[in-house]
């Protein structure tokens, strides 16, 4: 039986080359003087200093985090009731509804985002509907609202599916027990349903927040050329400015922030599970 463990060796080599080495390279480039090659390496922290001493860069980082938080909150508010409804449905209906939510996820994200351009642009459907209510004046495309909408649209299914999974695993007799013991529907939801669905909520938050922070084509397509988030800043450094060392430093900063946030989320999750066992 042990001999099967040899099957993993090729992958260990592959993973070292294709997963670990790239990260090591980013770290290396981020502390390298500009124009340096790996061979004539000389160490510097100037790129990190440049980022953290500049208000404009910090403001971009802040705005990226903020819009990701907004996206996550909206996804949670919209996604939870939907997931709850799906989990409550009969199994056949449940499968169909899940399929309905999965199909758009299979369609290319860029294509789906592009589709919003026509809907939001001047004289487009959304503006015409809004103008029926006398709200048609403002520009819709190339605003922060458009970016937020694009993000919610793209990432909401992750939230719904995660919460739905944890809700449908829940044992229904718990709800009956709670009702039998005299809890009202609100109390049952607060004391039983919500805590049990928390792992799904946390997974959902991770799956929405992570891509929302780093997304760069949603802001570019729906926010326009002057709408910059941290992802656009990284793209810009690599594609048009050509300062890869600075770009690598921004990437490292972003990766570390994400890692810290994920660790914090995990902690909450673990503490929560610990609480349940008591």
């Amino acid at each position: 039986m042990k001999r099967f463990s040899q099957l993993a060796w090729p992958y260990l080599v592959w993973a070292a080359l294709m997963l670990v080495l790239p990260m090591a390279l980013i770290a290396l480039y981020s502390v390298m003087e500009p124009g340096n090659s790996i061979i004539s390496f000389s160490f510097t922290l100037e790129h990190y200093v440049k980022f953290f001493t500049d208000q404009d860069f910090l403001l971009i980082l802040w705005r990226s985090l903020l819009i990701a938080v907004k996206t996550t909150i909206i996804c949670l508010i919209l996604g939870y009731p939907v997931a709850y409804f799906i989990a409550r449905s009969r199994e056949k209906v449940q499968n169909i509804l899940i399929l309905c939510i999965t199909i758009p996820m299979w369609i290319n994200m860029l294509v789906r985002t592009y589709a919003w351009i026509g809907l939001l642009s001047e004289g487009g459907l959304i503006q015409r509907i809004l103008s029926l209510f006398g709200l048609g004046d403002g520009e819709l495309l190339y605003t922060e609202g458009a970016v937020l909408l694009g993000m919610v649209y793209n990432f909401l299914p992750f939230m719904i599916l995660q919460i739905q999974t944890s809700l449908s695993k829940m044992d229904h007799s718990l709800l009956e027990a709670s009702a039998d013991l005299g809890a009202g529907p609100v109390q049952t939801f607060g004391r039983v349903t919500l805590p049990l669905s928390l792992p799904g909520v946390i997974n959902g938050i991770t799956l929405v927040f992570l891509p929302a922070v780093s997304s760069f084509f949603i802001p570019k397509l729906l926010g326009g050329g002057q709408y910059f988030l941290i992802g656009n800043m990284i793209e810009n450094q690599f594609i048009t400015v050509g300062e890869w060392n600075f770009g690598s430093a921004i990437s490292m900063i972003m990766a570390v922030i994400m890692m810290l946030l994920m660790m914090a989320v995990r902690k909450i999750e673990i503490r929560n599970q610990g609480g349940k066992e008591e």
Partner: protein
Amino acid sequence: MNKGKRPFGKILMILMILFFYLPIGYMIIFSFNDGKSLTSFTGFSLRWYRHMLESQDMMEALYTTFSIAILATFISTVVGTISAIGLSKSKKVIRNVMDQVNNLPMMNPEIVTAIGFMLLFITFKIEKGYMTMLLAHIAFCIPYVILSVMPKIRSLDPNLADAAMDLGATPWQALTKVIVPQITPGIVSGALIAFTMSVDDFIISYFVTGRGVKNLSIVVYTMSKRVNPSINAISTLVVVIITIVLVLINLAPILAAKSRKAETVGKRRRLLPAAAAVFAAAAVGICAVNLGGGGSNRPFEGQTLHIYNWGEYTGENIIGDFEEETGASVVMENFDSNEQMYIKVANGESYDILVPSDYMIQRLIEEDLLQKLDPEKITCMDLLADAVKGLPYDPENEYSVPYFWGTVGIVYDKNKVDLEDLEKEGFNIFLDEKYKGDVYLYDSERDSFMMALKALGYSMNTENEQELQEAYDWLVQCVETMDTEIVTDEIIDNMAQGRKALGLIYSGDASYVMAENPDMGYYMPESGTNLWSDAMVIPKNAKNPELAHAFINYASEYDGAYDNSSYVGYTSANQEVMDALSGEGGDYEGINAYIPRSDNENDEVFVYNEDTKKIISDLWSRVKIAASNAG
């Protein structure tokens, strides 16, 4: 249960599904639109589908997307399954470490993973293209396969394989006959995740691709600046393919369950239709690509020409005609700025022809990245206008053959903008709050600084840091007080539809806009502007210089040059074409933007200076950030 809550839930569900399908439905409807507009439906037509089928870019992207997805799914499923089995029997330390490593692509922001791959390929000088894209896709798919196979393996009885071997099975038989059938559901769902991830991927592909290899996402991203309903057509095609695959996958188990109840074979049945559907989808893609026929006895039969050119910078037919005539196939990749092009070329990516601007050609020559043209093979020089030959960046035209040329100016809506304001203020009209919220800037560091420097009365080639700083302040004031939009090619369709009053624009784009919308005008300030020219050059590391020379001649001769210039709107370097298009009955008759001016002594040609370039580049990023933070 919860009967009272049902109506609320149902309404919510309906709204949600409407929300998810509205853009998709809208896209499908507009793919059949007769007109070019994305907002008003003018009649049914299959025009954009024809367009799509004729677009080599799109067909190749479809092929690339699905062929990579299928290969990456297949390889990562096999490797992932084998590795998962291996890992499950490995020591705990190794297992834990590998859990962390596999988490890297899942827990890192995707753009970070993408940059890691890009740096890897560049550091080890692996040429970016189809192979690198495939490798990257395999690399990010395997962890998902392992993740979905692992739980199934853990739930197996660890003695199962031993039992099989005790009964005389070889290890191979134990693996394929005992273990694999038990974990098939995990393998199937892993394969499905891998396939979705690969088809859906944009960010990683975007950073690791090269040599004109594009998947669907990259094509949509690069084409999205111009209104192009063929994007809707190809998206609709993808929606249809994906829906068929999904429905088949979901129906398969139901059908299998109906035909025979609860047999173990049923589990395997799931895989077959899924695989069949995937391959059917691939076949559609491959057939579509192979529509183009072949020929024989042509000088460059079977060879490939890699061109790196500006977006929307070639005529409708020139590439097809050239391929027809020579038998070669052309792969075109587009850039939106000289800087973007430079980074790729300086990092060793190989193209046969580039079309950079004046100052960039100078830089490429200085850095020894170009090869001299073979004067014996260049037969087109006499056809070109004298005004674009022998310019300071390449005085003898040893390296370059002009392609398009023109000026930079202000496109304005005659109904909204007073010509007097333009004449009085020149480029300073971009600070006039009368037009607040009604202005486009162009996302080009050189030309934005040109505008600011000219507005302040300086030379656009200044090396004086004080003057550059003033220009920076001018631009910051502009983005902070004028509520500007910074665009690239989006300006063309938007100005043609009169969406804003003013914009900084290249003369050729202005010609196009004015030809589409007679209310638009083009103004070149008296304080001077940029007299630019873009020319074809052959980089040192070109793989097929012979074919490149042939193309340079082809694009400079009357037919090719006419097709380019009349379709795109930029001024041809070919004198005869220029005369024909601007003369009586020409497409651009009476349009002042088409003929570059030659009588203003304040006009200049860009000169490359490394230090200034760095300063401008850094300051321009900051202007954009200021614009973003102001909005």
